[in-house]
């Protein structure tokens, strides 16, 4: 018995050894980031970085774009998914496949033609270009549809008998029953929108429209030897999502592992 205990103890120590080692590798870059940001000027590095370029503006732009994008996705995706999941109509399966097929093609593949389309619409260098194309999200439609299909039809029939319209049924019955999916969709789209880089880099030019990631990338090029300022800027750009993550950590991890999607 003693031997067995010692063996399990050794086993668990070995496990923790490797896990801690992994944890150090994961955390160390963040610790170095914060540490460097506090060198020489201390906290004043943060003030200097924040005022050297209009980071406040970048934050507001990002916040604005993220909020509208997420709101748009919630409306358009839940409506579309509701029709895919509950209604019968001509071309439904075709349209669903059409939607899904766009997920097969990675965004860089159609970036250049997207730019041309935006240019024709006169949307280059506008908030429209940052927001409108991302106000729907096929993956979110897919998640909503999968969930809506699990809601029993009898519920719908009962509601119709009570004189409830289709839209009202979505609003009063379906959506309240879909809170976990709604949270997943919101989190995915917040993270995606907040971290998106290639698209805003391409479709906007003026500093007024810069979002955080693009602003940070330019700041990196302009201040390439000013490491204290760069690390301060990286820290305050990272903090909002890290805080969000720490608060809803379980939700985010569960959402990622359940639906398996990245960026």
């Amino acid at each position, binding site marked *: 018995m003693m031997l067995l205990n010692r063996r399990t103890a050794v086993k668990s120590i070995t496990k923790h050894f490797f896990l801690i080692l992994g944890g150090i590798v994961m955390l160390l870059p963040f610790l170095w980031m914060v540490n460097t940001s506090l060198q020489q000027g201390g906290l004043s590095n943060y003030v200097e970085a924040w005022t050297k370029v209009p980071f406040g503006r970048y934050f507001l732009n990002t916040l604005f774009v993220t909020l509208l994008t997420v709101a748009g996705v919630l409306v358009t995706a839940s409506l*579309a998914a509701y029709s895919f999941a509950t209604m019968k109509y001509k071309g439904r399966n075709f349209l669903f496949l059409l939607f899904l097929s766009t997920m097969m093609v990675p965004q860089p*593949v*159609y970036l250049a033609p997207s730019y041309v389309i935006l240019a024709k619409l006169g949307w280059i260098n506008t908030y429209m270009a940052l927001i409108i*194309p991302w106000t729907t999200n*096929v993956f979110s439609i897919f998640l909503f549809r999968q969930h809506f299909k699990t809601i029993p039809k009898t519920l719908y029939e009962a509601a119709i008998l009570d004189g409830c319209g289709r839209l009202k049924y979505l609003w009063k019955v379906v959506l309240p029953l879909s809170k976990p999916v709604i949270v997943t969709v919101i989190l995915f789209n917040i993270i995606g929108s907040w971290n998106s880089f290639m698209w805003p880099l*391409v479709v906007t030019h003026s500093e007024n429209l810069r979002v955080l990631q693009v602003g940070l990338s330019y700041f990196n090029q302009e201040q390439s030897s000013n490491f204290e300022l760069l690390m301060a800027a990286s820290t305050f750009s990272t903090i909002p*999502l890290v805080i969000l*993550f720490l608060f809803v950590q379980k939700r985010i991890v569960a959402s990622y592992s359940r639906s398996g999607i990245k960026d």
Partner: protein
Amino acid sequence: MKIRTKLGPYFYILPALIIVLVFRTLPILSSFTASFTDYDIGGFHGFVGFANYARMLSDARFWQSVLNTVFFVLGVVPAGLLIPLFLAMLLRRKLAGKSFYRTIYFLPVVTSAVAISVVWTWLYNPEAGPINQIITALGGEPLLWLREPRGIFEMMLSPLGIHPKGVLAGPSLALVSLMMVSVWKSTGYNTVLFLAGLENIDETYYEAAKLDGAGAWGTFRHITWPLLSPTTYYVLIMSTIVSFKTFALVYVMTPPPGGGPLGTTNVMVFYLFQKAFDRFDIGYASAISVFLFLILLSLTIAQRRIAGRRVYYS
């Protein structure tokens, strides 16, 4: 009233449909047609047949980007599979601090690629960066990291008097530095996927194996690995696609023009980005996009054929 019910479903789908059509389907189809045209900053100059594709064949920079991308994928995908699998194996079962570890591993996943790249550029900095400081403190030779164009095999073998050239020299240390960041960033995500896969395996299999006196390796080889194969397969396909799409890391850590020292971190998406938005050579950039898409498509099909057959669905 009747018309309303007939048209009803389309009203629900319309907002999403318009956006999908205008900002997904249309540009996707356009990238195919644009690849057969001469389209530059001055606008559309007519169809040119396969000229853009012919130009790709003789464009050394393009083939360099293909080779760099292949190096990148071949390095990142296996490492991004084995390390997370190992960590997930350690994390399964009840373990003190399990969710604490998971939180830490997941932190790089939610952090933006740009911020991560800025931080790692500093860590890799040859003069003052912490990595070289540690190496020198331990008595080692500092390295150039992101600024090192020499292939890693060349660097490892040249002290022995062997000097591999070309492809055999391997990816540059600069590219390998990017690969390490990419693995670091995706480890937490893949670990969580593997963890979910492991937790789906029925405990009775392990009890039976224990009764049969199977050792740790035998249990892994004959139970865990086959039963985990759907997850492994999924991680394999996802990481391949993500690695092919790599852009932000390259763009921020080895900024344009150039794509790293001697173009050794110039990967395909970076190259097509430069063609499209620095030169505004939309026709040529589209041909590269189509090539990229076809590679991804055939890889997905091939993986489904080869690996898919071995996937064991319980």
